[in-house]
């Protein structure tokens, strides 16, 4: 917690994006989280991604639940829409908002408690339905606000700050998301912005349920030896399968990589992702392969990061339900209530 507001001055040479904004224009209030919290780096990555994509802040709805992670939407995109919902209920509120107005960009921000414990069911159903959103879990493996109890994503065998060993099995949200049909699945690390920023940018460009699990060390309660979510552990066991470059606009891709090492994925919104392969055998279009790969590496104690699965031709909940395109608040009375003649016609169709 810092007592002063972040100074308004910015570096005189900051670059501006297409809208004429600097990355400072995408900030929110100053963080009240503990010093060094991984969540603040995720906040900075979201700011950077939105700046790079030249997103108009008023086109974004940021929705969260309860927890350290769910406080963070206050710290980025100060000029966006926001909703801080009940614990674990972010996915339902987001689904509802998305159904009412598909024109906004939906950013769901949650934590391991909010999504793997109290909101586990909500998480599962929003993914299963293919809501067009970017669902970010800021995953630190502990309940930081209640002083560091193991959360549902803490690895079995890992140690608490006081030295207690976790005997429960861990929920791997990435594995669940893959299984439930998420069409964009990634894992990253708050200490690696070079990987995280393009992943967030690509997830925002994806049409369908995008899920990013970001391991975010809790400095206060989970950054010690024996933790599997500490800076040191993640850095030592990080197995990145690929690196991303997000290319905004429709310019032809001219990436200077050795042939066969780069894979270009065209997104629904016309942007392109250049995937630089690190693991030559890894195919991010193979859901089953991804699940096996993940399980095999998890057993070895490795943390697989990168873009793990993407279906560029995915559809979202709106296309499944064939809903009206216009936001509900723009529909006039005569559209919403077309009159008895229309009702008669509709009833007749059901006879």
């Amino acid at each position, binding site marked *: 917690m810092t007592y002063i507001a972040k100074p308004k*001055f910015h570096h005189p040479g*900051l670059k501006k994006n297409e809208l004429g904004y600097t990355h400072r224009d995408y900030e929110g209030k100053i963080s009240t989280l503990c010093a*060094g919290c991984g969540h*603040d780096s995720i*906040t900075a990555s979201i700011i950077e991604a939105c700046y790079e994509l030249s997103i108009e802040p008023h086109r974004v709805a940021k929705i969260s639940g309860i927890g350290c992670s769910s406080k963070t939407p206050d710290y980025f995109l100060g000029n966006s829409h926001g909703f801080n919902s009940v614990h674990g209920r972010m996915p339902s509120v987001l689904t509802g908002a998305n159904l009412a107005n598909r024109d906004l960009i939906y950013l769901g921000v949650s934590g391991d408690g909010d999504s793997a414990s109290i909101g586990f069911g909500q998480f599962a159903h929003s993914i299963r339905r293919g809501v067009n959103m970017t669902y970010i879990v800021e995953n630190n493996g502990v309940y930081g606000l209640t002083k560091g109890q193991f959360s549902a994503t803490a690895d079995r065998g890992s140690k608490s700050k006081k030295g207690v060993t976790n005997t429960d099995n861990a929920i791997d949200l990435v594995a669940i998301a893959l299984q439930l049909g998420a069409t964009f699945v990634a894992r990253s690390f708050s200490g690696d912005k070079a990987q995280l920023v393009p992943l967030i940018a690509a997830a925002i460009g994806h049409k369908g349920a995008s899920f990013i699990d970001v391991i975010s060390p809790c400095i206060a309660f989970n950054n010690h030896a024996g933790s599997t979510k500490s800076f040191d552990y993640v850095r030592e066991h990080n197995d990145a399968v690929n690196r991303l470059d997000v290319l905004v606009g429709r310019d032809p891709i001219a990436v200077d990589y050795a042939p066969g090492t780069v894979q270009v994925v065209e997104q629904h919104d016309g942007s392109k992702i250049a995937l630089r392969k690190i693991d030559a055998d890894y195919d991010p279009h193979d859901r089953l392969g991804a699940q096996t790969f993940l399980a095999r590496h998890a057993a070895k104690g490795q943390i697989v990061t990168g873009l793990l699965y993407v279906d560029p031709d995915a559809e979202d909940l709106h296309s499944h339900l064939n809903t009206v395109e216009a936001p509900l608040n723009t529909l006039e009375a005569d559209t919403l209530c077309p009159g008895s003649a229309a009702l008669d016609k509709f009833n007749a169709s059901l006879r």
Partner: protein
Amino acid sequence: MKPTDIAAPDYFHKVVDCQWACPAHTPVPEYIRLIAQGRYSDAYMINWKSNVFPGILGRTCDRPCEPACRRGRVEETPVAICRLKRVAADFKDDIKHRLPKPSAKNGKRVAFVGGGPASLTVARDLAPLGYHCTVFDGDPEAGGMMRTQIPKFRLPNSVIDEETGYILNLGVEFKGGHRIESMKALLAEKYDAIFVGSGAPRGRELDIPGRKEAAAHVHIGIDWLSSVSFGHTDKIGKRVIVLGGGNTAMDCCRTARRLGGEDVKVIVRSGFEEMKASPWEKEDAIHEDIPILNFLVPVAFIHDNGKLTGITFQKVKAEYDAKGRRNLVPSGEPDQTLECDDVLVAVGQENAFPWIEQDCGIEFDKWHMPKVDPKTFVSTNPKVFFGGDAAFGPKNIIWAVAQGHDAALSIHKMLSGEDITERPLPEVHVSSQKMGIHEWSYDNDISNDKRFKVPHRDKVIALKDIRTEVELGYDVKLALGEAHRCLNCDVQTVFSTSLCIECDACVDICPMDCITFTENGEETDLRHLLKAPSPHPDQDLYVSSDLKTGRVMVKDEDVCLHCGLCAERCPTGAWDMQKYLIEMTHAGSACPTKSRSAA
């Protein structure tokens, strides 16, 4: 790059841009904080120690600190450092009891030629050490050019009397009206050392046709100013032309406005932008309805049987050669004649040493300047030292003060039997400002205020009396606002590699994008890898040793606000805010453990 050696006294000194730029290295942020706390006397004493004449400089300094001020790289204008100095002088209590006491004499005698800022600084440093100091000046009172050339509406006599008085009361003997006419005679008086601070007393001539014939109405600027200062001159014609573009020209034209000049013009050879006068002095002149005409070269004084009627000017334009050097070439337009009743010539000053005989052991160079060592200020005669304008030509008061301190140190070392080329290192204090988890002993909240204007007296009143000071100075409230604009650049960001866990918290919070964690490289490569561009290569990069991941922390010192947020957001205390205070070595102040060579 190699890890930055922050223990080198110059590294953090350079970060305090204002202090680094000040020839006397006044600890600017330190005294501005004291002003903000209402501790005006303490602020004054810090200044008094460094620059000797806070009240005088707070009105007249050329302010090398302000263009250097970091605030000017962050927003439009720097902190009004100079006028805050005046605040300390204006609002201080009686500080006499805080001044050094006249001490028992050590039996060594030092003579001073000239009673201006350079000599008085040397005397200030030497008198408390027991030296018998005798200051000779041709004028009846001490102060030199500060008293004779700076108009009273900028610098009242009361301020000069006060601050020269502080020095003379240290037991310094002042012999006014006693001009030294012969160095040889002075040497014969067997002083242990002689300091020459006689300034650059000769105004440059403008030898063009008509000069001799019209002499009655053509005046040399600095002579005329000093004649006004002593009350010998109290009027001038209605139409006055001032030739020259320096600060003396500005003083001449504004003085002329107060002595009956109604149509006063300044005319310069160069372009308006290239004029030597400080921008604020030009502004003040323009505010007093004095137009500045540029690109006009005087070619002849026009007179009617010896009565000046005007000046003819050739119109020129600036052309730049391949090396970027400027040449003024005739524009081809017809010459222009401007009518006037009086002309003030302020086209430069020169040194003159007609009183130094050739066989005094003092060698001169081909420009007729004494050969003086730029670090020790000794001449080729080991007992004779030079400082101020007398040493290296016309500069400003603050340079004279800085050189005076160095010369005093040399004299003290020489008379203590030490090697004067061994210069003791300055004393440096570095201390953490941490008071609590997120509390610092300095105000780290950055003010967004624009520079506050110094209130001026109403023009109609100001122009009526030559002794009425134009600037009123900040009041307490304005001073507080202006003091808050200071970024506390002396409170340094200090990084401990061993404590860093590379969590990026400092990178994320830094409002100026100063901090980058990256692979190491050569400086030019590193400057390209920074999070934000690095437009000022003269501003240092602070580079850590290798971190756990093999990367290094690189901080561009350029536009750091010293807000301390990096240290507040650092979970391990790898960043700390530490106040860096450097005290320059003055005569007698040193306890030299280390020293550096003067070469």
